[in-house]
């Protein structure tokens, strides 16, 4: 396979949301054939410039976005492609020179203590990872202490908090307060979940409210562009 053929094939498997040999891909027929992870490893072994891989990821995700807009692709397709790129980034990352421009930033995400809802949070985490951010997902029911500890250790640029219950919105408020109190004024805080709103975000001192994963991606890109 020539370099171009390999990159084309990589773009194709990302589009098909074929993560690795184990999954069936978009049409259910791809199990056992090389997926994104295998092809990325192969490309690196063959000495293909990691930057070219990143370009391919970008190109593939752009097509995924177009197909989603046009109604040909659905949420799970987008999630699978996002996961392909997220996993591929983990393989490519160590090969990249430190501080290169495609490091989009680190995003820490959690569902606050007392709240077990994670469907929306998982979608957001996968999509952000697929867009090339580093994502650390602390899971559900996460106490404020753990979130602060993780911030100290991981040094994120962005923190995302999810709350689906009116009762856990107050916990969200506490977490934001603690983050600010501990002096992390640069961290941009994103919040989401059914009962939350931009008004609520303003009230508790969070930076952005997002009604869904798409809005999260858009706002995130805007914030990054602005800085």
């Amino acid at each position, binding site marked *: 396979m020539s370099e171009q053929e390999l990159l084309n094939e990589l773009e194709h498997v990302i589009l098909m*949301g074929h*993560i690795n040999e184990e*999954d*069936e*891909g*978009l*049409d*259910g027929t791809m199990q056992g054939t090389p997926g994104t992870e295998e092809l990325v490893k192969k490309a690196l072994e063959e000495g293909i410039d990691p930057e070219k891989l990143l370009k391919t990821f970008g190109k593939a995700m752009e097509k995924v976005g177009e197909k989603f807009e046009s109604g040909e692709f*659905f*949420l*799970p*397709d987008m*999630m*699978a492609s996002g*996961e392909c790129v997220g996993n591929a980034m983990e393989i490519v990352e160590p090969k990249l020179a430190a501080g290169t421009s495609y490091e989009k930033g680190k995003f820490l995400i959690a569902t606050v203590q007392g709240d*077990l809802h*994670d*469907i*929306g949070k*998982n*979608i957001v*985490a*996968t999509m952000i990872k697929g867009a090339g951010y580093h994502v650390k*997902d602390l*899971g559900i029911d996460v106490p404020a202490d753990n979130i602060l500890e993780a911030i100290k250790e991981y040094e994120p640029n962005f923190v995302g908090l999810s709350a689906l219950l*009116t*009762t856990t919105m107050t916990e969200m408020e506490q977490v934001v307060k603690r983050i600010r109190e501990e002096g992390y004024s640069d961290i941009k805080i994103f919040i989401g979940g*059914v*009962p939350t709103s931009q008004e609520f975000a303003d009230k508790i001192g969070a930076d952005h409210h997002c009604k*869904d*994963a798409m809005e999260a991606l858009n706002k995130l890109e805007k914030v990054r562009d602005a800085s």
Partner: protein
Amino acid sequence: MIISDAQQIKMLSSSEMDLIHEGTCRVLSQIGVKVTHEDIAELLVSKGAQRKGDRVLIPKNMVEKALADTAKTIQFDAPNPDYGFTVNASENQAKFGTGGQALYMVERTSEGWKEKLAGAHDLKQILALCDQLENVDFITRPVECDVPEDQMDVEKAKIFRDYSSKPMNLANLFKRDRLDEVLDIIGDPAYVSFIVCLVSSPLVMDTPSGDKLKAIVEKDLPVAISSCTQGGSTAPFSEVGELMQLNAEVLFGYVLANAIRPGAKVLYRGIPITSNLYSDGSPRWCQPESIRRVALATQLCRYYNIPCCATAGVSDEAEPSAQAISEKVLCWTYIIASGGHYINSALGMLNQVMSVSLDQYVIDDILLKIVKEKFKKNESKEVSHLAMDAMVEGLKLFGITVDEKIEEELRARIEHVEKSLEPYNEDNVSQQVDIIEKAVTQSGGSTVFMKASRVGLRKGYLYTGNRIDSPLDLTRVDERLEAVSIPE
């Protein structure tokens, strides 16, 4: 209401039911439930369960013992003795109630429907209204009070005491240590029942809910053990897989409740709906494929011969509408025919359980009457015909002209409810158990289910049809609302 044996439907054969049961037992004995509550884990182990890391594996004989031990009849009393009733597992008797923990009240204004945050005052109004509606047999807490969490139980109990004379399902108990106070306020524990969402999907026991279940069962109060899986996000997208996981989650509750107190008064509340994978993953409560799945869970409960708390009539629509009417009537009809006993969330609910509306309670009361009459008048008629007749009559009553296009749409929905799109065989069961195991053992389990749903999505698991869009004539609702007295 009572339905005839001829009207009771069984969409799966008994060998297909056996297959789901065996698959469920595999889920419970191989994958088990994550339990971080040490006392509960120990209790289960003392009764024969095994531990594997933080998971508790439940062997088949424990499941079957719980099913044998559990209460087969449950009495629900009420301040007005005329409203009391008994649920008997083997009877085809359906009772209807409200449901909720909705966030919003939807109100009619001169500029159309408006949403506002719900609170204690709304709870009073809803209870007062439903006390006067003839097709509301019991009250499940529709909205919470706008008071701090530690006062929620007590505040709610006071409002129930003051505004309801029907059997009272307080649903969620916020603070276990306030249970005695709640019972004191209500005056007689025989009026009270609860709902506990014991297991979060997929297969993780919620620790505080474990404590609440224990407190409720120790007092011998009736409790519905609830699981609301969303195929495609918290459970397999496949109906076979979702049913097995849901059943495992509910039956785990039966095992625990009957370990705490053999003969526990538990109701089976299984709500296997789907996730809207065409858009944002939000739940689809009242679409044909979800109605089919909830009907199957109801039938599964009857196969076990245990009391069934079904959920039917939560519209996906944000406000009262023709579409909401068609969704609700179709759903009730199939859940009644499936043998649901204690059907909650049946009235008032909109917007995927997020909203309720006084107008909708009245609309639903009128519609339920139509559905009941259809069953009563046509003792041997097939459920598909009853559903069609009731939908058409319901729509017409609210001023909608039912033309051929609408009839065609309604027929397509009925067809989707009745049609199986998957094989019920060993292969499918094994494949689904694998997916569940993978989702349970990986973080971000919902993404596992989502990715595995791509093929099913293209096979049409999610119904795609047309919304029924037509303005409502609400004269009847106005008349009814004028005739009742509700607190200002």
